[in-house]
């Protein structure tokens, strides 16, 4: 049952989910362009990147209904684009 712990920085981590949202965990604030706080009720959030969520900036799963497809994140060598 050996598992390599995933490397992560203390400040937070952003996970680019294939065909889905951007997951953000750690210490951060979400603000509007003018600096107002965006209400946030959980530590780790999923930010919509398909544009179709009804609760933007958060993801509500709608990306699955619209068949949103992403290129694989540009992390050279981790995986070939599909």
């Amino acid at each position, binding site marked *: 049952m050996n598992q390599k712990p995933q490397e992560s920085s203390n400040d937070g981590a952003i*996970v680019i989910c*294939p065909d889905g949202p951007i*997951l953000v965990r750690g210490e951060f604030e979400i603000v509007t362009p003018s600096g107002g706080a965006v209400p946030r*009720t*959980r*530590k780790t959030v999923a930010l919509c990147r398909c544009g179709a969520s*009804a609760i933007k900036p958060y993801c*509500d799963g709608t990306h699955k209904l619209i068949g949103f497809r992403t290129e694989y994140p540009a992390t050279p060598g981790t995986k070939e684009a599909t």
Partner: protein
Amino acid sequence: MKIPDARGPISGGLFRLLADGTGDVSAAQGALHRLIEGQLALTDDVIDDGDVQLALFCLYELHYGGLDGVDNRWEWNPGLITLRQMLEEPFELALRSAARSSAGSVQPAPAAGLDSDAVADLLFGLAGQDGGPGMSRHVAKKATLGQLREFLVHKSIYQLKEADPHTWAIPRLTGRAKAALVEIQADEYGGGRPDRMHSALFARTMRGLGLDDVYGGYVDAVPAVSLAAVNMMSLFGLNRRLRGAIAGHLAIYEMTSSRPNQLYGNGFRRLGFGADVTAYFDEHVEADAVHEQIAGRDLAGGLVEAEPGLLPDVLFGATAALAIDARLAAHIMGAWETGTSSLKPPVPAGV
């Protein structure tokens, strides 16, 4: 939890045994043992057998909040564990066969060598084949107030202890999968705020519709399949050998949750209910869009990367969840389409 009404000889015998903590336990267990053997031989569908499901539900309950008036030491009574295993065995077989028939169209996955992204992909693919939001669409557009209340009664069996069955898995996991499950569960339990616990939000929704929010208060009102849906989670959660299944169950549960909860919320809004009632559903739209990513990739995927041999059980947990959910939805919609109640008629006294 208050001890429910017996639904047949097994649950009746069990309740008598539990109430009589001082009697000749081994004799009573011997008799119950033979009774269960006899009853199981007569049962053709364990999932739909109210007597079996209620007995299992109460046996599991000894590991959760306990049963009113029952000595806590029963939890680890070896004879009682044996009885539970007698019921669990055919139940697990029935779940495996239900899972096989619901997963008929899934391509067989390679036995090993899937990375976490591929596991998440596989699970998202399964979730995408889910029969569709038939019941949630009905709730959104047409359900009557009475149907919304029935819907909450069915859900209350699990939602008033939401997340608890999956929590059993935490000490059985390591590394990435464990961290993922803890992250999800922390959110389920309100991130340190008791009023934000999902079970507490659900209780608020129930009160908003004038329902009793006491845990287990509606066990007597629901059919066997509603109990089976919760027993399935306890079976997966309480048996370490099924840790793959509980991970798969949670992943698929999260993956098939955001959209239906949006529609459920709309149904309650349509009938004029406010944020106190819909908060539970609104919370799940947002939370489960986060959880499905973590549960698919880090929990289920991380587990399969660490223990590749668990992939078939992860898929079993996921497809069994879909199959039982579909049965429950079919039962409820079937009743509603004929204008009847999906709840159990009250049992005449003296069963």
